[in-house]
């Protein structure tokens, strides 16, 4: 029987726990946190903006294509775009993109530090390496990724609206009426829960993969690939799980 999953799961939990031992100086931690927030948040803004604008636009065009019946009001397009963006496309697609961008970056950065003995240097100095390296990344992710999710939702709806308006599929009023018609606060709240969960998965799984890299440059690449693959699979799994539990 293969116990590899249990071994890695146990080690992942131990890794998360070890981050909380021996906190470093508060000022040093805050500097690291702001640095990571800048890298994860500001650094990911262009890709998130481009992705969400186009997703919204494509959703509008494709929904209009599928609405062949004249009995269905055009404003339904606005409803579908805004609801599907908040429920699924905003958090899930954004986080899948971020698992590639942020996850690979975190894993390769920490992995490279591992193979070049920089993590050993931290440990010899008596610094809690997981706490110093991974904790600011995880907290920065938990703060910035939900903010990116809000931005993604806004831009996606705007992209949908623009596509509808520019291509003459529906008018401004139709889109706004549709978008407002079925809006529920809980939908947005659910979207934020997903963003928090996915943010934790991306940052913690990638940090774990990087931290336990062994070997050389080739293995750093392997760790980055594993970080992206495992994060993406876990995002999809938790996407389903949260939908089952909360909707």
């Amino acid at each position, binding site marked *: 029987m293969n116990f590899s999953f249990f071994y890695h799961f146990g080690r992942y939990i131990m890794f998360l726990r070890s981050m909380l031992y021996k906190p470093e100086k508060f000022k040093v931690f805050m500097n690291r946190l702001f640095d990571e927030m800048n890298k994860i948040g500001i650094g990911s803004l262009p890709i998130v903006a481009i992705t969400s604008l186009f997703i919204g636009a494509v959703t509008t065009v494709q929904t209009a294509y599928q609405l062949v019946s004249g009995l269905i009001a055009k404003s339904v397009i606005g409803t579908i775009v805004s609801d599907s963006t908040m429920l699924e496309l905003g958090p899930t697609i954004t986080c899948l993109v971020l698992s590639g961008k942020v996850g690979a970056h975190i894993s390769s950065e920490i992995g490279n530090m591992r193979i070049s003995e*920089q993590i*050993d240097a931290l*440990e*010899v*100095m008596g610094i809690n390496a997981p706490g110093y390296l991974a904790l600011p990344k995880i907290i920065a992710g938990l703060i910035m990724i939900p903010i990116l999710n809000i931005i993604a939702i806004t831009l996606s709806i705007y992209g949908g609206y623009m596509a509808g308006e520019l291509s003459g599929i529906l008018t401004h009023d139709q889109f706004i009426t549709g978008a407002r018609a079925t809006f529920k606060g809980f939908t947005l709240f659910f979207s934020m829960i997903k963003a928090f969960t996915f943010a934790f998965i991306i940052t913690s799984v990638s940090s774990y993969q990087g931290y336990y890299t062994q070997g050389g440059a080739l293995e750093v690449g392997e760790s980055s690939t594993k970080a992206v693959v495992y994060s993406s699979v876990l995002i999809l799994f938790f996407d389903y799980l949260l939908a089952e539990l909360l909707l």
Partner: protein
Amino acid sequence: MIELKNVNKSFEDKQVLFDINAQFLSGKNNLIIGASGGGKSVMMKCMVGLLKPDSGQIEFDQRDMLSLDEQQLREVRREIGMLFQGTALFDSLTVEQNIEFPLKMFSKMTPAQRRERVNFCLKRVNLENINKKYPSEISGGMKKRVGIARAIALDIKYLFCDEPNSGLDPITSRLIDALIDEITKEYGITNVINSHDMKTVADIGDHIIFVYKGQKWWEGNKTDLKHAQREIKELDNFIKASYFE
């Protein structure tokens, strides 16, 4: 002084260190010599706390590292500096930030005091005007010196050097050896050097420990080495192979 008492270490079913007893003297260059794969690096990693021995004691001036609580262990670790084989400089930080790093983490110095200490350490290792450069922008020999500067930034009592000459040309190697020797004598540091360079042994070795297949085969000073070489075949083979290399 650092003392190892009956230290054993194994990885899964393979034993790497067998009942090691050794002393590393204060104010001296203590060299661990031996062929690659003989257990030198594992021994050093056990001493600095990167690996935990299966059994035995590792005492830093009568403080057993394996029985100290977290706070006491942290205090001892602040007295340790290490020069890594690959220097292990943080490549996202400049030279200045690298040396300042332990000061920022563990001292209560003001930024001005830290800057002064960084410049002092850089000057001590004969480097100046490279404060703003990144590790990728300086040579291998300079990286080693920055590594030494970072190691001595805090007032350390123990310095560990893992293969300090690896990857360096013979002239730079001798300069690094001389620098390590000067610093050891000047600050009265207990210096532990892991090396298979017999030139280092000849130049700066005060106290030598020969490790072979995970066991300590011989311990003594440089003058006794010739005699030991005649007595111990493994040591003789190692020394001849090193010179041939």
